[in-house]
């Protein structure tokens, strides 16, 4: 089933074309890695697809009414903003806002979803801690749990592993891959190409606001594209655990 369908999506900011005629569709069970150099348009593409910024062309999620959209797609922005010193449990409960009218108290269903999200991100022990006082890695997990509590078939995450230590980078990507296997769809942007290649079922490579390649990881990530799009010479090896990339030097 198609969860997100984007057609001829373009975004211009002050006469500059940030995205040009992007077309793709994401179905159930896909874990899509969104790759590309800085400024390629990864964040803009996700925000436009969610209807958070003005755009031309169409996105099936953006054209939904806000209430329906909030129950279809959850968004994890890269800026890990937590404005107030709320507890972890309360913060994760914010994910239930699309299901609650103003002033309504959480119901059994809401508590169940929050408990499941906390368990999924291994946060049970931190439930009553103040979210703003946690480490960066713990905060990142809390914010992913918040999106899980929103209980949407589609999750979009903007560089969710940025700033995490290697163990948490791997476990976070494993978590997203697991969600996709369990029947949700995930779109994550990332800069670690090897990590994305090993955990995603599909990669979309953006360059200069257009899709340069779209397909299974081993078809999308080639030494030639690394050189052409990222401007780096990279070490590449196909291992039992999936492809390993290590950028070595900048191509002048």
């Amino acid at each position: 089933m198609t969860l997100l369908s984007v057609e001829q999506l373009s975004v211009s900011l002050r006469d500059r074309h940030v995205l040009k005629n992007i077309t793709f569709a994401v179905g159930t069970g896909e874990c899509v890695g969104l790759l590309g150099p800085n400024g390629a348009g990864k964040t803009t593409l996700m925000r436009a697809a969610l209807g958070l910024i003005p755009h031309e062309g169409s996105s099936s999620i953006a054209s939904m009414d806000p209430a329906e959209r909030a129950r279809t797609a959850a968004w994890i922005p890269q800026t890990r903003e937590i404005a107030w010193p709320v507890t972890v449990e309360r913060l994760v409960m914010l994910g239930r806002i699309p299901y609650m009218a103003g002033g309504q108290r959480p119901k059994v269903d809401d508590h169940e979803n929050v408990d499941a999200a906390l368990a999924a991100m291994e946060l049970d022990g931190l439930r009553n801690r103040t979210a703003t006082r946690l480490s960066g890695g713990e905060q990142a997990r809390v914010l992913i749990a918040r999106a899980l509590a929103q209980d949407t078939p589609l999750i979009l995450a903007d560089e969710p592993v940025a700033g995490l230590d290697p163990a948490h980078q791997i476990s976070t990507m494993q978590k997203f891959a697991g969600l996709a296997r369990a029947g949700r769809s995930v779109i994550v942007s990332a800069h670690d190409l090897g990590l994305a290649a090993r955990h995603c079922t599909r990669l979309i490579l953006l360059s200069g606001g257009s899709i340069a390649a779209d397909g299974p990881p081993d078809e999308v990530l080639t030494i030639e594209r690394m050189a052409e799009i990222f401007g780096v010479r990279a070490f590449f090896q196909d291992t039992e655990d999936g492809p390993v990339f290590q950028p070595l030097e900048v191509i002048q």
Partner: protein
Amino acid sequence: MERLAIGMIAVALALFLAALTIGPAAIGPGESLRALIAGDAGPLTLVMREIRLPRAILAVMVGASLGLAGAAMQGYLRNPLAEPGLIGISGTAALGAVISIQTGLAASVALGLPAMALVGALVGVALVVALAGSRGSSLTMILAGIAISALAAALTSLVLNLSPNPFAANEIVFWMMGSIADRSMTHVWIALPFMALGWMILATLGRGLDALTLGEDAAGAMGIDLARLRLKLIVGTASVVGAATSVAGAIGFVGLVVPHILRPFVDAQPSRLLWASAMGGAIMVLAADIAVRLILPDRDLKLGVVTALVGAPLFLHLIYKTRRQLA
């Protein structure tokens, strides 16, 4: 949460009764409350119904308005330093009042002053909405507020500067200190519709403010219409602050300090902070207005002076505490 609400209502009620029984006319508490209820045309009933009752009601209304608007503004901007005066409405309302004093309108027309202050508030809100209403960001709202505040302050200074006689200038300066002394029930009725409208609008913001804990982008993706939220915040704040300024002048620090103090008691949840700050604001202004009458009963100490004198050190203490937490 319930315990906090019950406690605050009890304190507010006690202070309300105290406000009714404290004044220059030496009347016992029981006697004064009996006179209030009795309704005979005696002088005691007159004092109670025409002087003390409106004053106590206005303290509750003004305090609740400033506390509520402060909590909403801090929640929207996700900044504990935000306060209701930020959007410039208190400045333009004050300018309207000052013009009415300067032109003699306040003296010649009954309620000329609050009416002109409300006109000032309306002009102010029209400017903010035009600059930051439906398409602007929180930043344009702050910048618009700063610009409008600065313009209103400059024009207020100009009026003072050109004041033909020292009496008018004196009256303006004293009015600007903020007070709810010598107000009548008419002032209550003038302010009430605007405040009630503002309270109703601001009370609906809780869900959106909670979502904003995660930032504007995440809130937008959770179905919160941010442009609508901002418009409601501006109109709601302008209604309560404009009405409060028109009947009480500039009462500072309530909208800043009250949400800040109460935040830990509601687990920092913006939606719960709304009603708690409304109660807290009422308590602070009631207490300050009682203090005004007890500290220097014969010197007409101004309410705004006391709230600032109490609020500023409290705020310094809070900054000190926050600094230690961050270190």
